[in-house]
């Protein structure tokens, strides 16, 4: 018998956690002598007050959807993929190779090709730690973290020594050709009469991310593979009894996870920068962990949490731009949200369960 009704579990708990994080953030802002109400207003205005703000919020959210899904899929197999960052970097390399070296006739084909290559690069980058875990017992948390560093070094080498155009000072690839520039939300929404900011980077990748959410939901809850992944995640001993191979599930779950993280690159590399630069991922791989935690590894939860973190990113950037609140403090606020929604979950859950219990008894 569940103690709390489902709606309280999925809505009330995160909402209260968020509120607590917001109050604490407000106190911190107050402590450095700024006005928290004004700051909140600025964040909301900056992130959601215009289509320009929305464009950025959704752009960040798209990144987080991919990385959040990546972490979620691995979570379902009880694998902690901390390597989303590295996998996304390698995905960027895949996108760059697809865009620079294949003459795509149309952006849609280019996008498909980029998805395939980005996914493949991310998957390979996740497959090595997965193999080491499955066959050698090297802990996947350690290996995926280490692979982040290796990915950064590989990218650095590729950009400085291989992909940098002759004569350029910048460790970045050449700009991608016009044919593979992705339509932004402005381009997509204009034909149906909605005017959306031209400058905002949100692009067609958002739709790909939403499709990915739906597909991952189907995979996890409607297919045999998803059933096996969840079974393995719940109980390895039971999975063995049933004849579900731990090696196979570890490999497949991590490959899917890595591919999703890699696909993030179609948004930031192909959709926004339109060339590959160093540190293109901007920590989105790590935010994915928080997004998956907050979204309870459910694609719908990930979708919502990604938008929330998109809001925090964009609102935070606005805050740093217009007030004397330093950029570092934005990170503090983000960290508080992660802390309350992820790590301190039980702090809210336990008292709430007690309240519901008391209510139910009173009702009897």
């Amino acid at each position, binding site marked *: 018998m569940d103690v709390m009704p489902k709606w309280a579990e999925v809505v009330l708990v995160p909402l209260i956690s968020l509120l607590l994080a917001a109050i604490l953030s407000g106190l911190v802002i107050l402590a450095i002598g700024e006005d928290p109400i004004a700051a909140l207003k600025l964040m909301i205005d900056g992130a959601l007050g215009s289509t320009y703000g929305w464009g950025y919020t959704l752009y960040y959210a798209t990144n987080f959807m991919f990385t959040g899904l990546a972490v979620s899929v691995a979570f379902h197999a009880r694998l902690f993929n901390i390597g989303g960052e590295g996998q996304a970097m390698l995905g960027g390399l895949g996108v760059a190779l697809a865009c620079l070296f294949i003459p795509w006739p149309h952006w849609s084909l280019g996008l498909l090709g980029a998805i395939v290559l980005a996914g493949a690069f991310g998957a390979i980058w996740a497959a090595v730690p997965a193999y080491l875990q499955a066959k050698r017992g090297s802990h996947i948390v350690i290996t995926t973290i280490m692979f982040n560093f290796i990915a950064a070094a590989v990218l650095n080498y590729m950009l400085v020594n291989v992909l940098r155009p002759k004569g350029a000072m910048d460790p970045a690839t050449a700009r991608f050709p016009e044919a593979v520039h992705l339509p932004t939300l402005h381009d997509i929404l204009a034909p149906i009469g909605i005017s959306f900011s031209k400058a905002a980077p949100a692009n067609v990748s958002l739709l790909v991310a939403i499709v990915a959410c739906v597909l991952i939901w189907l995979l996890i809850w409607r297919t045999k593979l998803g059933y096996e992944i969840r079974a393995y995640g719940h109980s390895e001993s*039971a999975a063995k009894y049933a004849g579900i191979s731990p090696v196979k599930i570890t490999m497949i779950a991590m490959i899917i996870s890595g591919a999703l993280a890699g696909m993030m690159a179609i948004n930031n590399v192909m959709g926004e920068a339109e060339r590959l630069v160093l540190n293109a991922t901007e920590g989105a791989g790590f935010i994915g962990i928080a997004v998956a935690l907050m979204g309870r590894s459910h694609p719908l939860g990930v979708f919502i949490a990604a938008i929330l973190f998109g809001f925090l990113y964009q609102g935070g950037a606005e805050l740093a731009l217009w007030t004397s609140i330093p950029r570092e403090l934005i990170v503090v606020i983000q960290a508080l949200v992660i802390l309350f929604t992820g790590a301190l979950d039980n702090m809210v859950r336990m008292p709430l369960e007690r309240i519901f219990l008391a209510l139910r008894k009173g009702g009897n």
Partner: protein
Amino acid sequence: MNNDTTAPAIELKGISKAFGPVQANKDISIRVMPGTIHGIIGENGAGKSTLMSILYGFYKADKGEIFIGGQKTEIPDSQAAIAAGIGMVFQHFKLVENFTVLENIILGAEDGRLLKPSLAKARKSLLELAAEYELNVDPDALIEEIGVGMQQRVEILKALYRQADILILDEPTGVLTPSEADQLFRILGRLRAEGKTIILITHKLREIMEATDTVSVMRRGEMTATVKTADTSPEELAELMVGRKVLLQVDKTPPTLGDVVLDVQNLRVVDEQGVERLKSISLNVRAGEILGIAGVAGNGQSELLEVLGGYADGTGSVTLNGEAIDLTGKYSDGKTRRARGIAHVPEDRQREGLIMDYSAWENTAFGYHDDPAYQSGIFINNAAIRQDTEEKMERFDVRPPNPRLAAKNFSGGNQQKIVLAREIERNPDLLLIGQPTRGVDIGAIEFIHQQIVALRDQGKAILLVSVELEEILSLADRVAVMFDGHIMGERAAGETDEKELGLMMAGVET
């Protein structure tokens, strides 16, 4: 009820405790006189453990009072229980494996910052206790190196060292051989003679009859009766526990033997640490026969089931209906075994047989989720599985019959029925079944035993592993006893008894 003028050692008055909507204890009153052994018997989930947890300070009762030696006592935590002279021996021992006996005994009761004086003091009182109650243990032995019977003595000593006058033992014989259990009861008798009060929680009727002075029966959170053991019978107690007449004996006809279904020759299993767990075992099971594997837990029975079930590697030869079965490699897994007609009800349903967080319907497909009947295109046909589960629940009387409920929310007996329904209804040639009634209530035991015998009567081969000798003797047609990874011997079930098997279980050649 009692005209004695001495105050009861423990008296509980009107204890009630609810967990959410579940009323675990309902207005329970009980008097335990000093210097007696008081049994508490009841099915799983009847509320025995909750009641004892309240007495030991793990839970706080919603209502009711506790009197210790006539004094009203509050027991907010286990420290208070120890201070009140209550000691508890848990079903799963709470010992530090790589500590010595002595170190375990003082753990949590050290005085001062330095260990040495405490150890010296403990050694002295340990010797005194050993002399007084015939509780001999080597104080310097490591826990991991002594047997379970000894470990249990350490638990009892731990309680006595803390000056317990009241000892609560929760299912103490679960891991003991019959002779170890007899020893335990001798020790308990000795403790009683010295004036200690003992509460014995068990689900085994025989132990109640043998060891206790009075017995209280619990059913669904209520105390249904308290009687003098001498004035009652196992049949009456069983009826009080379940609320209806129960068949304690399994009704079965002599077996109709068919061909050899499972043939095992020189099966060896070496675990990851390089320890040989199965030492060249040979056995066979015929169609229409139940082969019972008896033995104390941990003598290789689990490994035998694992290797036959396909999730541990082994060497040797195993054939099913004359055809070889792979013991290693790609085709040695649960899936392949099931496809060959081997069904398996594992020993530990919570770790292996079920996924506790999965709903009943997801568990019904578990291991058989490849079945085309459960698919529609690339997707799993959830509706079809739910439908199938509903029907299985009906046939196996699973309660509540709700396929969407998570496995962890069913009682032990109903969980086992879910596993059993899944495995038996696949119509296997061979059924491997481990501890079929562990943690299962009497009412369900009867049903499960009937199902196993019914499957045998359909001409299927059954390999039954159980640590309950009674179960083996009442179900099996042939009994093999395992000790230390090999088979001590085989007997026809009708031509042996508990005594002989008990000796074989202890490694004595007979």
